[in-house]
Every structure is written in structure tokens, then in C-alpha cells.
């Protein structure tokens, strides 16, 4: 069982949906916000986030911490991230097990790492630093990968499991990313699922991808496909009630088209766990005072 609050069934907050969220009563328990979109000095984004936070719990999800990068840590970025988290009080703060650039360049992509002991030492030390600066536990997400390094000394799930043990960080289990990476690298996604500590998973991501025939790309621009729903059900069986959300990053449809996907995530959880266990804790649904 997850040691984290069960927020229920959420959605990635996108600016196209601000108006419908604020004017309506969407059947969404919580929202995940992209941290960088709100690391601004003022204007509309922060005003909208304030209004949404008054009504919904949020979690913060970053895309550019670059926690595995061998470049020097960016303390200014981390301090701004902390200021945002202190202001909006998310249930947790997450980012990816990846790097986005070195030598001052940012490639704006979630790039793969070799799963080596050297890499483990490096990433664990960075997570310790980040947790110190942020003053809170980090939640680390597995990314979709298309290549693997021949020098890897362990599997991705072994690397993640060891990170949680060494640093106390938690995991954001992206069901689609596990599915995509398992296909691309020819392993059984159940090995991944069974290989990480059951109590370390704080959150699930559910998304779609593009099928290129001989490989799959994590485009997050399609509805969640059946294979990912199926793996989500397996994840529920292993991890129990975990806050789950629909993540759509591109080709973003109206809110009314995404809410049924949120409802499907809820419905599958009810089927797997039973209605009582699939009902979020009332206390975790309290919005900001």
C-alpha cells in the first residue's frame, strides 16, 4: 500500500481548460500542474492557479529539474521551485529520472541514463540535495526511453528501487512510460511493476503514445490505449489505491473529452479495489484554506 495520501482521480492542468474548470464542476478530484508554467513573476498563470487551488488539491510536476545531469545543480531553479511549492502547498513535487542537458545547454527532452552504480551514486546525491533545498520529499517519475546503454549494470526498476531506499524519495509510476519502454527494450512490463517497492508509489500517470510499428513513442497526444488501461489495473492490484491522473500534453481536446478518461480511471479502480478503497480520503481532498 502506498504511504501517500490518496487524492483520487486527477487531470493534468492545461491553460486551455482554465475557464471550463472555474466555471463548471468537472468530475476531477485534483490537478497536476507543470511547475515551470507557474515559475513566472506574475500575470494570468499564477492568478488562474490561485483560483484553481482554492477549489482543488494539486501536485506539482516539473520537466526541467534534470536531476540526473552531471552539470552543476541549478540552485536558483530549485529555490524558485521551493517558493512556488511553499505558496501553493502541493501534495507533493515530482520530476523525472532523466537529464535535459549539460554544458549550459537545455535540450528540452527527458534523456536516458545508463543504470550503473556510478549513476546511482550521482543521482542519489542529487536527490538528497534537492530534498534538502525543497524541504520536502521528491517524487521521481520513470521516463519513456528509446535507447539503452550497453554499460547498464542493472534494470531501470532496480535502479529506481535502490534510489527510494537510499534517499527516501517516492515514485511517480507512469504506466504508459513503462509500457512504451518495455516494448522498445523487449522486457515484460510486469517485471518493472513487480520490481519496485509497493509502498513507494505516490502517483500514477496515464497517457497515450504513438505506435511506430517496431517501436513506440511517448507522445502523450492520444487517449489512453487499452494496453495501458490493462497495465494500470495490474498496477492497482500491486500498489493499491494510488492517486491516478490523465496526462495529455499535445493535441489537447476540450475538458469534456478528457473527463470521461478520468472517470474510466476511477471505474477501473472501483472494479479492482472495490468502491470503498477506490474512494479518496476526505482529508486529502481539502483544498487550500
Amino acid at each position, binding site marked *: 500500500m502506498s504511504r501517500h495520501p490518496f487524492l483520487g482521480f486527477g487531470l493534468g492542468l492545461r491553460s486551455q481548460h482554465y475557464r471550463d474548470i472555474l466555471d463548471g464542476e468537472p468530475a476531477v478530484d485534483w490537478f497536476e500542474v507543470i511547475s*515551470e508554467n507557474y*515559475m*513566472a*513573476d*506574475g*500575470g*494570468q*498563470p*499564477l*492568478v488562474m492557479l490561485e483560483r484553481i487551488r482554492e477549489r482543488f488539491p494539486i501536485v506539482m510536476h516539473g520537466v*526541467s529539474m*534534470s536531476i540526473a*545531469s*552531471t552539470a552543476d545543480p*541549478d540552485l536558483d*531553479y530549485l529555490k524558485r521551485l521551493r517558493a512556488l511549492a511553499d505558496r501553493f502547498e502541493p501534495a507533493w513535487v515530482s520530476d523525472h529520472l532523466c*537529464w*535535459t*542537458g*549539460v*554544458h*549550459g*545547454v*537545455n*535540450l*528540452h*527532452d527527458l*534523456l*536516458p*541514463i*545508463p543504470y*550503473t552504480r*556510478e*549513476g546511482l551514486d*550521482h543521482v542519489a546525491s542529487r536527490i538528497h540535495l534537492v530534498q534538502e533545498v525543497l524541504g520536502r520529499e521528491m517524487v521521481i517519475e520513470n521516463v519513456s526511453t*528509446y*535507447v*539503452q*546503454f*550497453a*554499460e*547498464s549494470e542493472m534494470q531501470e526498476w532496480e535502479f529506481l528501487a535502490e534510489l527510494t531506499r537510499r534517499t527516501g524519495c517516492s515514485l511517480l509510476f507512469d504506466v504508459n512510460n513503462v509500457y512504451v519502454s518495455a*516494448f*522498445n*527494450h*523487449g522486457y515484460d512490463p510486469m517485471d518493472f511493476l513487480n520490481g519496485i517497492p509497493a509502498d513507494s508509489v505516490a502517483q500514477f500517470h496515464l497517457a497515450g503514445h504513438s505506435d511506430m510499428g*517496431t*517501436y513506440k*513513442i511517448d507522445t502523450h497526444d492520444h487517449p489512453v490505449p487499452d494496453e495501458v488501461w490493462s497495465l494500470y489495473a495490474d498496477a492497482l492490484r500491486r500498489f493499491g489505491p494510488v492517486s491516478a491522473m490523465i496526462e495529455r500534453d499535445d493535441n489537447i481536446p476540450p475538458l469534456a473529452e478528457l473527463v470521461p478518461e478520468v472517470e474510466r480511471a476511477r471505474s477501473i479502480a472501483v472494479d479492482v479495489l472495490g468502491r470503498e478503497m477506490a474512494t479518496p480520503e476526505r482529508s486529502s481532498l481539502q483544498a487550500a484554506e
Partner: protein
Amino acid sequence: MGRFAELQEMMQQAILAGDSRVLETLAPGGQEDKAVLLEVYRSAYVLRLVEIIGNDHPVLKAYLGETNFNGLCRTFIKAHPSTNRNARWVSQGLADFAAMTPPWAEHAEMGEIAWLERALGNAFDAANSQVVGLEDLGSIAADDWPSVVFGLHPSLALGKFTTNAGDIWTALKDGGEDHPPVATLDEPQAVAVWREGLTSKWRVLPPEEAMLLRAMHDGVPFGVLCEMAAAFAGGDTAAVRTAGYLQGWIGGGLLAGWTTI
């Protein structure tokens, strides 16, 4: 440098410069050749940045057309790899690049449209500030007016057009397909971009207003602004004209506080 850092260096060079050394360090792919899989990262890098720039510059993209816009973006990205963590800054240097780099530099309207779109984007989430209302001015003592220095909203950016880039932007901004032919202006126009409330705005400034706004931006007190207006277009109505501009700036949410020197 440790091996972990070395592999990141090689991967980055593969993405930025097509250096294939990293291929030797990759394991065979599941069902696809590893070179094809590495190419996923290389092509995604360019496509993603072109998409980000397109989102920030929809009018420039419409004006140039998909192919020419992609060409500009790809050349820009190669010359100026992103150095900021936040993707919203990727196109920060695009206007200057288009204005100074052939063949785009021969078409000044391109750089000017790029500047306008970037400035509107910057104003969108620039810092907030309490703006001055007309009623607030009542608290300034008559004797103090000459030494009042007004502050400007932090979102304000001042630029200039040498072409009818503003008319082209207006014609294309909401998905329009037709725009006026490019024309070079007889005299360059000053342009102000700022945020009023939550909405980014821009307008052309008449020469006298542009001069005064720039002076205000530099911290010039109100009394000197009136003297500048008098020298610019005659003293009889200078105070009235300056007060008129002030009223317009207040109405547009451009003034943010004042100090007395």
C-alpha cells in the same frame, strides 16, 4: 570526467551535432536498429523546439508559411541552442536573429513581427504591480508635481517598427489568411507592449509620447517631461499635452506608483 558524464556529453553531441560516437555505447534495440532509435531523440529535439517557437510565434508562422518558418527555426536553433530550463524562453533571441541574419534580415517585417510576439508573450507573465488610478493623483501636492517620478508597469517593453509589421500582425493574429503587402514606413514608429490586467496589449506611440515614455522609463521627473514636451512641440500646451499622455497611461494601466525626488 566520470563515465556517467562522458555518456551525457556524447548523447548531447549526437543530438546537437549528429556525432555518432554514442552509438557504440548503446545496447541493441528490441525490434529496431539502435541507430533508428537514436534518431528519435535527434528529430524530436528539433521538432519540439520548432513547435515551442511556433506556439510563441503563431503570426510569424502564418506569415512565413510552414516551410519557411521551419527553415528559420532550424537555423536559429542550430545557432542558438536553448540555455534556459524554461521552454518559454527558447525564442528569446529569435527577433534579433531574424533581424541580423540573411536572408531574413532583408525582410525587416519578420524580425519586427517576431519582436512583437515575443514582447506580448513576455508581458503575459511579467511581474505584477499595483497600478496608479486617476483618483490616486489627488494625493500629490501641487508643489510636488515637478519632482514626481512615475514608475512604469514591469511588463512594459518599448520597441520600434520600420515596416507595417503591426498591420500584418493584426491581419493574421486570429487565423486571418490575408494581410496587407509589406511596406517600409516613411519614419520608424515607436511601439509599446505591456499587460493591462491579465491581457497583453500593444500600440503605436506618437513621437512625442514615445519620447516622454522613454524618458519616464529612465526616471525623468514630471517637471522635466513638461519641459521636454515644450521643446518638442511648443510650450503653450506642453503641460496639457503631457497631462493628457499621463491620463492615457493611467487609463491603460501603465503607471505603477511614483516617488518624489
